[in-house]
């Protein structure tokens, strides 16, 4: 029983599927936001796995790890802005339930 790249890719895909299902299932905007973070982390896991399994001169491919670093940074900025928007929304409408926010609905 040895670990292969496919093990990591499968875990990454399952994590992405759970995050996606969460975005579709839940109606609380904060939980939807947490599920988005799960999906970003699934992408990070597959990038790090590819970096470890595609060696360059016997070292992991560090370009992938730098990309993961960028993803984490952008995700942190995204969380800050997104939560500020949610707070502004809560102030205006007193709800975090996406079905109560339907002014733009056709």
């Amino acid at each position, binding site marked *: 029983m*040895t670990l292969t790249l*496919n093990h990591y890719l499968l875990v990454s895909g399952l994590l992405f599927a759970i995050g996606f299902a969460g975005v579709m299932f839940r109606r609380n905007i904060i939980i939807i936001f947490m599920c988005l*973070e799960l999906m970003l982390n699934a992408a*990070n896991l597959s990038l790090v796995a590819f970096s470890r399994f595609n060696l360059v001169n016997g*070292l992991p491919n560090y370009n992938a790890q730098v990309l993961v670093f960028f993803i984490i940074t952008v995700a942190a900025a995204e969380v*800050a802005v997104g939560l500020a928007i949610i707070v502004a929304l809560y102030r205006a409408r007193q709800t975090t339930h996406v079905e109560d926010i339907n002014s733009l609905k056709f």
Partner: protein
Amino acid sequence: MSPILFYLFAALTLVFAVAVVANRNPVASALCLVVSFLGLAALFVGLDAYFIAVIQVLVYAGAVMVLFLFIIMLLDLKAEERRKINLPGYVGGGLVAVAFIAQLWFILGRFTAGHAPFPPLAQENVDDVHNVGMTLFSTHNLPFQVIGALILVATIGVVVLSKRELK
């Protein structure tokens, strides 16, 4: 990484990810997300990406989740009462998620490069932070500075958004 540890941490990550979706209480969801991120950090250590694992714990399990918990406390969210069942969401989301996993299973079965075991590293102890830093500041110098500008813009945006009234 020993297979037992891999299965342990992969199960930890996935089980607590499911708990994030299944919990009705937002605070419990956020705490489950912290455990899920810690499991993921352990998987990164198993892949010899020590720097990324540390960043994952510091930034995600630390800063981002504190921000989430802070906002949940600030908004004073109760566990959401059971509303009418969101049937199109459940059916559509479930179908797409299952279809995605099925496709992934099918593709990974044929992905021959993915069946190879761990290739051995050239050195026993890789100087991980040094190598990531060298790549970051030489090959990816411009994107790094753009990220700095992005964070500045995000900070200003957050300050503007959280002002009560704009003048």
